[in-house]
């Protein structure tokens, strides 16, 4: 019997496909998410938009919150550790969290090195803006990817940029000649072996979800249309006027992302979505997507 194999870790993310993973900060929100049909919840102390507003250093959530959420629902529970923070990740693993997000939403603990995720039994999800980043994270052992987008802004533009970029670069790799791959690996800063795997399989070897700016059912459907395997919704749900209704609408729009009549129906009278931030108004140090290397 083998635990923590690539197949087991990547397979767990495969089971989440076509689903929505929701940020929650307590048991009550976790139950609303589960009831709405979320495939997993991300247990946090604060959602990204509040982290952004609060400023200061953002760290792993209080383990009591994570524990409370784990007790409240039967769907998988994820939690965030700071980039490169080996101990936060080990603590979450010891608690039995089902997936760890090595996340740029939190303040990085290491400005040079990410976690060596292959050493852990628990699987990891990591953010990426391009194939170089995606392949480096896979090389370190990430079992799932997500776009970075720009978390806590309610603005989808960065997530769109990131998924288009990664998918365009994957297509390029798939159509490349074998003798061109090494130079591409050099240019992307990507592990050669990972690029070979992408070329062989014709796709990324792990699932890639959308994250960072999904605020409406149409946003979720747009990311699916652009090739995301599923959607993370952070501040969008519990910062909206009617979280129950919003959560259900986002799940439904993700499942039936090409049923435009349906998306129109379920977008009616949803109340105000989160306010949102224009990306160009963010100062460089406020851009979470530039964290990670």
């Amino acid at each position, binding site marked *: *019997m*083998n*635990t*923590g*194999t690539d*197949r*087991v870790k990547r*397979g*767990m993310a*495969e*089971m*989440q*496909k*076509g*689903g929505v993973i929701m940020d929650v900060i307590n048991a009550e929100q976790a139950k609303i998410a*589960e*009831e*709405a*049909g*979320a*495939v*997993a919840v991300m247990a946090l102390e604060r959602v990204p938009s509040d982290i952004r507003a609060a400023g200061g250093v953002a760290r792993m959530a209080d383990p009591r919150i994570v524990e409370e959420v784990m007790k409240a629902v*039967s*769907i*998988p529970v994820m939690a965030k550790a700071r980039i490169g923070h080996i101990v936060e990740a080990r603590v979450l*693993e010891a608690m*039995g969290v*089902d*997936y760890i997000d090595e996340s740029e939403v939190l303040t990085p603990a290491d400005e040079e090195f990410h976690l060596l995720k292959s050493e852990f*039994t*628990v*699987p990891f999800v990591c953010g990426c803006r391009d194939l170089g980043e995606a392949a480096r994270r896979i090389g370190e052992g990430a079992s799932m990817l997500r776009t970075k987008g720009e978390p806590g802004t309610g603005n989808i533009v960065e997530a769109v940029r990131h998924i288009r970029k990664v998918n365009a670069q994957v297509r390029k790799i798939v159509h490349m000649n074998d003798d061109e791959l090494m130079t591409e690996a050099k240019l992307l800063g990507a592990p050669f072996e990972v690029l070979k795997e992408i070329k062989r399989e014709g796709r990324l070897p792990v699932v890639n979800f959308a994250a960072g700016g999904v605020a409406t059912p149409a946003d979720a459907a747009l990311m699916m249309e652009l090739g995301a395997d599923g959607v993370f919704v952070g501040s969008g749900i519990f910062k909206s006027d009617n979280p129950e209704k919003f959560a259900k609408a986002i*799940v*439904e729009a993700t*499942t*039936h992302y090409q049923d435009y009549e349906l998306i129109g129906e379920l977008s009616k009278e949803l109340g105000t979505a989160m306010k949102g931030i224009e990306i160009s108004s963010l100062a460089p140090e406020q851009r979470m997507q530039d964290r990670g290397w």
Partner: protein
Amino acid sequence: MVKVGVLGLQGAVREHIRSIEASGAEGIVVKKVEQLSELDGLILPGGESTTMRRLIDRYGFMEPLREFGGQGKPMFGTCAGLIMLAKDIVGYDEPHIGLMDITVERNSFGRQKESFEADLAVKGAADCYTAVFIRAPHIVSVGENTEVLAEYEGRIVAARDRHYLGCSFHPELTDDHRLTEYFVHMAEQAKLAHV
């Protein structure tokens, strides 16, 4: 060539389709109730059973799925799909689709860090088969006419009750298509019996 559908509301749909095609049948992603009528068999894939149940209800799949089984058309549930098919679920008053005469328990091998792969024998399909268990359920007990096909450390992990097949693990996550072939064969036989 028989047509085998995969309920495509959520979960590992693409992998099952690939496995069905490798087993010599036509694979169809089922997102709407109307699609069921053209199928000779249906796979309920792995995913999140709670989520899948909500979506089955919302899109009115429950009765059509029960009718599908009632017509004698084969159904195969893997992991979350097994939970959907079972007549009894430990700790729950009501089953989901509830067609297969077995009792299952959810997440009975533990959380994700306890997820594992192991080699086991599946009666009638493979002597040595690598089974991938992810937050897997197991079959606590089976009805009188249900045949146990595989066990792991004393727990039942695959069974067949008439035209219903179920397993705790994920045949779609490996390149070994023998269990899918077994199901495609069930669909072929059911089709012949109906003609």
